[in-house]
């Protein structure tokens, strides 16, 4: 047998005094860590397979289990960290591209945490959202340049199609395939209950979810999976996916073994076949080509639906966004480098792209400078973790935010970052029927509604604290932010003053 270089990352600690050998953990763990040993008469574990998802821990009736990070370590080395060494071993063993999931976990700066929000004192009194009306309703889409009247002086409705959001939070694209049927059902129902939108991702729309069409954004990506007339008609808006924060510049790949009957029907591809989304759209090599796709979608849906263009936050994002704004898109969605994914090459996820905070500030400023900010709405994601991030995003210029990781956490995701294996013990990133059943869409929907409702309330509290009663007055209002622990260049890009200034 070849020598194994890799020591398990986690240890399964079982308190044998508490363990009653009910074997619940064995049934719950799709990674097959736990097993009953009849000879020993007790439960044993193969911790090398454990991904620290806490499923067994949560379900153990006697609380006999905990998972700890192993303290076994390589000889300390500031350059060759344990992680760096382990990754070399893995690649030397397999010859493969390292594949991981969820967002970039590396300790880069998080600018949200270096921004502080203002509040009123003495002058400009704060507002109590429990007593006074607070407007967080948001409209996404092009805003008309001016008022037009006919010969009789009556107003001409020159409004282009808009998305109306009760709260400025939407669920971002996750395809049916990358996540389960029950996860999609939870998102769709929650979007309807909250008066917002969820997004199909590049996977088509399951026939059961056409009923949520008014709260659905349908996505058109480079593979064009599941894209046809009825699909385009079904949604409230159409999103062209040019890029994704977790993997800018590369396409997607759903392995054939995940393409079962239901996924096959939704994506409209044969069962068992890989679903490869090419890196670029091969009909888009320029802004002019993008414009062509935008207008082809508008023609196909008779100009009744706003078109969103989603791009990843990369180095020249401001210039790219300016091009997108001129392409006829109604909404630009920008995804930061911390955005999640069901599977991406690790090197790309961890080293390509830029922080969404800087990208957002740069894009908003650029569009203002060019006098075209009203031509598009700006939606950002990757990653917004709380209502505080949301408030800061809006003050930096976003019209609304997209959340996905936070939404999955609400559904029970434990961020074990092994979605790519398809064995999600929480029934989210899996297609295995026994695992999918673990996610109850009624509860899932309720938890999502709870989360967003709580955020909306916190948003109103913070707005009230600033003496602002309408989200419009917060949008792009960078005076409501101050920086902390930032250098002058960062402050300049973010367009905020330092705390105390």
């Amino acid at each position: 047998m070849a020598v194994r270089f890799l020591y398990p990352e986690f240890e399964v600690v079982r308190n044998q005094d508490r363990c009653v050998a009910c074997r619940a953990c064995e049934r719950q763990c799709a990674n097959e860590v736990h097993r009953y040993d009849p000879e020993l008469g007790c439960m044993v574990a193969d911790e090398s397979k454990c991904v620290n998802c806490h499923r067994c821990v949560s379900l153990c009736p006697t609380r006999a289990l905990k998972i700890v990070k192993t303290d076994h370590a390589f000889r300390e080395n500031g350059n060759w960290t344990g992680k760096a060494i382990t990754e070399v071993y893995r690649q030397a063993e397999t010859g493969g591209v390292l594949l991981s999931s969820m967002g970039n976990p590396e300790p880069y700066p998080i600018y949200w945490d270096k921004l502080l929000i203002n509040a009123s004192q003495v002058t400009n009194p704060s507002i109590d959202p429990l007593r006074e009306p607070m407007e967080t309703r948001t409209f996404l889409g092009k805003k008309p340049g001016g008022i037009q009247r006919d010969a009789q002086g009556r107003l001409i409705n020159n409004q282009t199609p808009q998305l109306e959001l009760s709260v400025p939070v939407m669920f971002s694209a996750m395809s049916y395939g990358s996540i389960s049927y029950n996860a999609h059902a939870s998102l769709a129902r929650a979007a309807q209950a909250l008066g917002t939108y969820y997004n199909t991702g590049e996977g088509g729309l399951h026939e059961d979810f056409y009923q949520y069409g008014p709260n659905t954004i349908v996505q058109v990506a480079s593979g064009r999976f599941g894209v046809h007339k009825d699909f385009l008609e079904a949604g409230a808006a159409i999103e062209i996916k040019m890029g994704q924060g977790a993997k800018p510049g590369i396409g997607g790949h759903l392995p054939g073994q995940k393409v079962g009957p239901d996924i096959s029907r939704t994506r409209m591809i044969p069962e068992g076949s890989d679903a490869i989304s090419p890196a670029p759209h091969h009909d888009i090599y320029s802004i002019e080509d993008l414009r062509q796709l935008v207008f082809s979608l508008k023609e196909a849906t008779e100009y009744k639906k706003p078109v969103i263009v989603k791009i990843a936050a990369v180095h020249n994002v401001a210039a790219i966004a300016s091009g997108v704004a001129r392409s006829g898109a109604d909404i630009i969605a920008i995804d930061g480098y911390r955005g999640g994914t069901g599977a991406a090459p690790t090197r790309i996820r961890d080293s390509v792209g830029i922080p969404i905070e800087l990208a957002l500030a740069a894009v908003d400023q650029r569009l203002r400078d060019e006098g075209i900010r009203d031509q598009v709405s700006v939606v950002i994601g990757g990653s917004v973790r709380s209502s505080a991030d949301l408030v800061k995003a809006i003050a930096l210029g976003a019209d609304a935010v997209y959340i996905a990781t936070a939404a999955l956490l609400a559904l029970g995701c434990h961020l074990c970052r092994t979605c790519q294996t398809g064995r999600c013990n929480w029934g989210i990133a899996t297609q295995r029927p026994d695992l999918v059943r673990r996610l109850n869409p009624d509860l899932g929907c309720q938890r999502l509604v709870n989360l967003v409702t709580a955020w909306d309330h916190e948003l109103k509290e913070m707005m009230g604290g600033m003496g602002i009663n309408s989200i419009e007055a917060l949008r792009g209002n960078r005076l409501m932010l101050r920086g902390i622990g930032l250098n002058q260049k960062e402050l300049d890009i973010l367009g905020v003053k330092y705390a105390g200034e």
Partner: protein
Amino acid sequence: MVIEANQTYYQALNEAIRACPDTEVIVDRVLGQRYLGCGSSGRRFTLRGTPGNGLGQYLNGSTIEVYGNCQEAVGDTMNDGDIIVHGNCGDACGYGMRGGSIFIEGNVGYRAGIHMKSYLDKSPLLVVGGVAGSFLGEYQAGGTIVVLGLDGTSEPLAGNFCGMGMYGGKIFLRGDRIPVLPRRLILQEASPEDREELRPILERFCRCFHRDLAEVSNAPFHVITPDSANPYKQLYAPY
């Protein structure tokens, strides 16, 4: 009903076509207007002139017959229906096409039939009377592409990188002007079953463009298929 396109802007022209109650519409003097027939189903369009980009994009069952040349993205992401072109077509023709057929009398540009796919009873078909540019059938996942080489030249039937990254479907090539093929593709002489599959396709082509079936069929045919439907299986190291 006959509509004169002339210099009408494409939005107005498409609006007029959509508003027209007739199933059959003839559009004369087409001058580069985009997205004609886009997403349409159950109708028949005859176009004279040169339609612009995105002709029959997302087409959903209508028939479009063009007397003239076409520009880019003909039948892009098309789901069903037929497009017949008495002329040449530009680039990205039949991109992501899932069903229906495109018959081109002349040549087609770059990236034709790229990422075509099939699904249940749907199997898209792209037939090129002349020759194709580079990247023909790149990422092809399903359906059938046929290149006939009836252009009277001795050029290869397709440019560079024909079938690059292909993982499903077939490409038929008539005659011996086989292009240089990338790795991972299987090139074989058409079997009797392949010939059987081709026959109705060639019949339709000859009917569309008044060609002699015997002349078109009497030639060697080769078929290109990928060597795997899961090309990337070995690429990744889970982590």
